[in-house]
């Protein structure tokens, strides 16, 4: 099951990478970043049973790997990050919020909507932490 999820996430990230037209030599790498991010998400959501915190860890993973790859291959970091971030965006949360709104189940809508909002916030905070980390490391290295 784990391996299956990983392969699916790998191919999915590569597909998103081509949709956003990333350089041809980076397709496999960004697929790898996306697969790692989804793996972290999958593992944590099984252990903690919480969408928000597992999305946060997945976003941090994608961010850190993206920054590392960007440093190593001398390419903009967004190339490796965007295909990995897209699977984490709460499309399902948005859909279920709308579904409950249409069904006039407002409790459920508030529930799902809040979760979708906080998942998006978790992605943002994960990205902020990883990028800030990499920039401060860069600054320290430049000084030394």
């Amino acid at each position: 099951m784990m391996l299956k999820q990983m392969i699916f996430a790998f191919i999915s990230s590569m597909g998103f990478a081509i949709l956003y037209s990333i350089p041809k030599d980076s397709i496999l790498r960004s697929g790898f970043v996306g697969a790692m991010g989804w793996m972290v998400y999958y593992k944590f959501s099984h252990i903690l049973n919480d969408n928000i915190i597992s999305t946060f860890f997945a976003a941090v993973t994608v961010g850190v790997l993206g920054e590392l790859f960007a440093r190593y291959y001398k390419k903009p970091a967004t190339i490796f990050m965007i295909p990995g971030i897209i699977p984490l965006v709460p499309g399902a949360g948005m859909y279920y919020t709308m579904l409950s709104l249409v069904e006039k189940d407002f409790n459920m809508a508030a529930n799902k909507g809040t979760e979708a909002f906080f998942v998006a916030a978790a992605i943002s905070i994960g990205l902020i932490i990883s990028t800030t980390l990499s920039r401060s490391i860069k600054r320290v290295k430049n000084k030394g």
Partner: protein
Amino acid sequence: MVQNLQNNEIQPKKLLLLAILAGRTMLKNGAETYRAEDTIERICKSRKGIQHADAFVTPTGIFASLEYNGEMITYFIRVKSSKIDLNIISLVNEFSRQFVNSNMSIDEGLKRLKHINKINNYKTITRSLFGSLACAFFSLLFGGTLMDFISSYMVSLIVLILINKLTEYKITFFLNKFIGAALASILSILSVRLGIGKNMDTIIIASIMSLVPGVAITNAMRDTISGDFLSGLSRTLEAIFSALAIAFGVGVVLNMYFKGVIR
């Protein structure tokens, strides 16, 4: 030598133009604003005699000025970002590094930049085919069956082709995503009705994945951290409105479906 003296007035103007064009190319294809600012400043400062160079970039416009021989030159360009092409950002990044570190002439630089602008990494149909493949595999991640996989592939392929057509006509992103999400839901309902797909939820979720504002979220956060709060805010707004457009598109169709308008 005489040539050099005559060109003295023209050269800094051309340099600034080159820098601004590089920045605009980046911004147009979905780069972060701090990257565009950085590129412009680097290109300007790479040549001798430039005392001062500064750039202010927002997602919709570029201001840049440089000082040469005590004279200030300022340019302003309006930018309309249309598409996301990460390959071009990477190429301009490489170009600026080359330009700064070598003795490339400005005309040569302008020529190369124009060439980069025309590069099409993948054909539109290839992008649509692989983008819908990504969506289809996403349905498997959400526990869809093989039939769901096939139907979400078909649905998202049609949606992506339509979105590409709409982008050519320069329709605003809000309407673009709204139409895309509505079409995705209609086709998903249709595919379940025809007996191709099984789980309507999974198919719709997978098909709207190609529309979600992942790039806007990423860029918004990266801009905010580097202190460009203006761009950070405007990109956050773009992400919020994209999400709203998708939600409305899905919601309208679902509403009609539950009320029995669509059967």
